[in-house]
Structures are given as C-alpha cells and as structure tokens.
C-alpha cells in the first residue's frame, strides 16, 4: 500500500522522510516501497504512514541486525507493550518488563512467521511476561511504587488509586484505557496499533471508562451513557 502523495509530501516537508522511494524490480511488479523514516526524533506514538508493509520491512531489517529498524519498531510498539504491562504491574516493573519484552523479541525475531504481524506477536509476548518471583501486581503494591520524578505526593497517591482501579477492570478495558490515558493515544491510533476495529476500541474506551468512574466513585459522563444506549 502506498500512502497518498499529499501525505508523503507533507512528511517530506516536515523532514521526517529520510529515504523516500525505492524501486523494487520494476520490470516485474513495478512495486513502490516507502522506506519508513528511522530517525530518532520521530514524533507521535504511531505514525499513520507505518503500514503493515513498513512493519514487515522493519522486521526484516531488524532480523538482519539493523538496530535502526528495531528502534523504529520500538518507537511504534513500545506504547502498546508498556500499556499491557502497566495494566498489570506498577510503573517501575512495567518499564522493566517492557524493555525485557523487546530484548526477548529482538532475539526471537526468527520465530516470527508473518513479519507484518509483529504487533500482535509482541503483544502476546508481553501478556505472557511476568516479573521475577515475589513481585506483586498493581493491586498489591504500596504507594512508593507509583512515585514519579517531580510528582507531588498527593498526585502519586491519586495515580496509585486510579491504577489499582484500572487493574480491577477486565483485560480488554484495562489495556485500552492505559493506551488512552497513560500513553496518550487517540482511539484511531489504538485501533491501528492493536488491530481492533475502531468500533471495538470506542466501546472498550467508553465502557471501561464508565467502570473506572464507577470504581473511583465518580459521576458517569454523558458520552458513556450514550454509548450504553447504542
């Protein structure tokens, strides 16, 4: 799939595209590939230009030892993996497991059969990961686990309470809410990253948020009621 020319041009002007077009065996298929920018300052959690084809390309490059390609995959999928971990474990543990998950995935890339399915593959790895024995889940942790650099103690305490509430929700709601609330992703970006339909993401967000509000003792939002009526 080739991105629209206008979009390409916009990204070219923004200096995001490093390598643009590469002709691959034009005599037989005339296929155009867009080399996804592998710069370190790429903004945004998920670039809409990074299609399955680009993911597969990066996986292929990473499998051949390209650190830059793997960095691109990390930038693209680390919010997903981190959100999965954050929905189960305290932030510090989630950070460690996220890095461990990518390190494991990097070493096991040969086991991935369909390169375009890297997202689903690493998400499955992330869901199977557990911290070392003795480390408890979010619901069991104390306030120190939620301390963040520069955060006020009362904010950390409130964040810990929200995390615990989210940890008590069904898995589908937990991960979607973490992607939205902690990773700052839009519903559309979550749908692209997780492979869920936009409608499923919307339902998960609203039902999950309604349950979270309920768990936190907050008033239901108008939008949640609308979704419930749909």
């Amino acid at each position, binding site marked *: 799939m080739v991105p629209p020319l206008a979009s390409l041009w916009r990204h070219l002007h923004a200096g995001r595209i490093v390598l643009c077009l590469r002709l691959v065996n034009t005599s037989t298929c005339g296929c155009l590939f867009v080399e996804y920018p592998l710069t370190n300052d790429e903004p945004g959690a998920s670039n809409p230009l990074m299609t399955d084809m680009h993911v597969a390309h990066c996986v292929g490059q990473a499998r051949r030892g390209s*650190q830059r390609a793997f960095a691109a995959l990390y930038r693209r999928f680390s919010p997903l993996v981190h959100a999965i971990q954050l929905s189960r474990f305290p932030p510090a543990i989630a950070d460690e497991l996220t890095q461990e998950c990518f390190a494991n995935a990097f070493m096991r890339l040969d086991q991935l059969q369909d390169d375009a399915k890297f997202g689903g593959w690493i998400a499955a790895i992330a869901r199977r990961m557990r911290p070392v024995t003795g480390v408890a889940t979010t619901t069991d942790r104390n306030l120190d686990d939620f301390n963040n650099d520069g955060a006020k103690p009362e904010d950390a305490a409130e964040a810990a309470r929200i995390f615990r509430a989210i940890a008590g929700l069904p898995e589908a709601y937990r991960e979607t809410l973490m992607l939205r609330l902690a990773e700052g992703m839009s519903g559309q970006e979550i749908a692209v990253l997780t492979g869920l339909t936009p409608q499923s993401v919307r339902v998960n*967000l609203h039902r999950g948020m309604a349950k979270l509000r309920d768990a936190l003792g907050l008033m239901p939002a108008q939008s949640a009621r609308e979704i419930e009526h749909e």
Partner: protein
Amino acid sequence: MNEHSDPLWNPQASADDDLARIQRLLAPYGVRARGLEMPETPRIQRRRSSAMPWAIAAAVALLLLGAGYQYRLAWTPGRSWVAVRHAPSASDGLTRLSPGQSLATASKESATITVARIGSIALSPDSRLRLVQTEAGTHRVVLEQGHMRARIWAPPGYFSVRADAAEVIDLGCDFDLWKRPDGSGRIFVRSGWVSYRAGTDDILVPEHYGLNFVGANAQTPTRSDASIAFTEAIGALERAVGTDGARSPSVQTAAAAVAHAARDVDGFSLLSLLSRSPALANTELYPRLGVALGVDAKDPIHRLAWEAGNQEAIDAWWKKMPSQPKRWWGNWLDVLG
C-alpha cells in the same frame, strides 16, 4: 457526540473535569513521558547473503577451471615432450622427444611419454614411436611398430597416431594401438571414442570395441566380448561384400548369419556395417539393428532411404546410440589415469 468531539476518542477534544484529571495524573506514567529507552540489544552479526559466498566461490572455481583448461591445451609449437624409459635392470631414464625424433624401446623396456599437457602414452617393449608434430591443438605421432596405450583428455582431433596408411584420431579417450611390422594392427578403445581413417573410410570405434586392420583395410569394430561366431560371420560378410557386391545372394546369406549371431549389445557393430555399406539395409541386418537399438524397423521409407545411402536416415539411428563421440569431456577419469 461524534468522534472528533469525543474526548475519550480524541485526546485533543474538551474533556470533563474528572477525565482531564485522570489524564493529567496518568500521563506521566506513559512510556514516552518516562523516557523509556530502547533496551540494549546484543548486536546481531549482520548475516550476509548466503548466496554471495557461493557465487564468488563458483566464479573463482570457473575462472580457475577456465585458466587450467587453457593452460592444459596450450603448447609452444615444436616444444619437446618428456619421456621416461623404464628398464628392469636400470633406473628410470629421463629423455626428451622432439618433432622428427623417434623413441624405441628394447625388449623388457617400456617408456612413458607425456603428450604436451593433454595426456600420456605408455610405450610397450619392442615398440617404436616417432613424434611428427606438436603444437596447441595438433599433436601427431607415428607408431612404427609395437604397442602403445594413449590416455588423452582433450577436444576431438587434438591427438592422432598414424599407423601405416591409416590414422587413428583421438576423440577424447583411452585406447590401445598395436602395429605389426607387416602393416596389420588393432585398435582397442577402453574409454571414449577414436576415429579410424584410411582414405575415405572413416570408422568410429566406441569404448569396449576393437578394430583390426591391415594397412588401409579395416574390419568392422566388434566388442571385446563378442562371440567367435559373430566375428567370423562379420568376416564372412565383409568378404562377400568385397567380392560379390552388397546385393548378391551370398551377402544376403552372410548378413542373415551375422544377424542371427548378434546380441543386442553388438548393436554398434551392426550400425557400423550398415553405415559403411548402406545397401546392406535390404538384408536382415536392418531389422536386427532396429531391435538392438529399440527402434521401429518397419518403416519402408526409412529403410529405402538408408539403402540409398541417405545420411539423414542413417543419422536418425546413430542418435539412438547411448553414447555419442562429442561427449569427450565426460571421460574426465582418463586424466586421473
């Protein structure tokens, strides 16, 4: 509420106080907000294309083969050959053989002669060989008497031996040649093919076949394990053809005897007979050869064409032979001999 104005779907949209507060409290825990770096990954050895080393190796091997092949066939005109005499009573004696020179072996003495770079000749006791010409592509000797065995691995025609009126041309093979003082002799091919030429007579001899000759007159090649009845029947047929003509009743009878005595493995003898005397196609040799080669011999047009000496008709059956003279390079084992 559409997606654009839905604050849960679109983080840029205006959110209620509770959602805004939850976003503000959780945002610092996101992967980017926490500045989570990519993990240190072991640097994978960049795998080179596995095809490349093989392609390079193949190219180098081809280059070496090509260079070796050219070197093997190259030879300065007139440059002498190396010969080693082997006598039981003395140590081996090294000598050189230049064009025009002869090498004779005494009884109980033999010699090994290196034929440029394309092979060797083993000269038996009581034999005499003369080098006539040597240069790249043309190496000619005369076997004046005795026996020699030549092992040659080179394109057809690079090496030849004159024996009286005939010339034995190597087509890339391993063969023996006997020459008696009375002008008679024999060729036996161990591997590959040779061509026996005397005047307009050109007889191909494949491996495991031998050919007797007297001066320029050569007999039909027969297998080394051919029955006496078969070789005698061939001799009788050749005599009948020589005296009575190919269409005489005596030839028909003699040809029937040959066909009767022939085995399938004697097919080349029949083919040689029919090629040298196409008129014999009206005898029983023709259907017998068809059986030996496993081809349909009931086509009257083909038979008539053969009888008339049509080369195309003859070649059609020649191509049924399991090995062809042009495959000289397949006899590479001769090089190791």
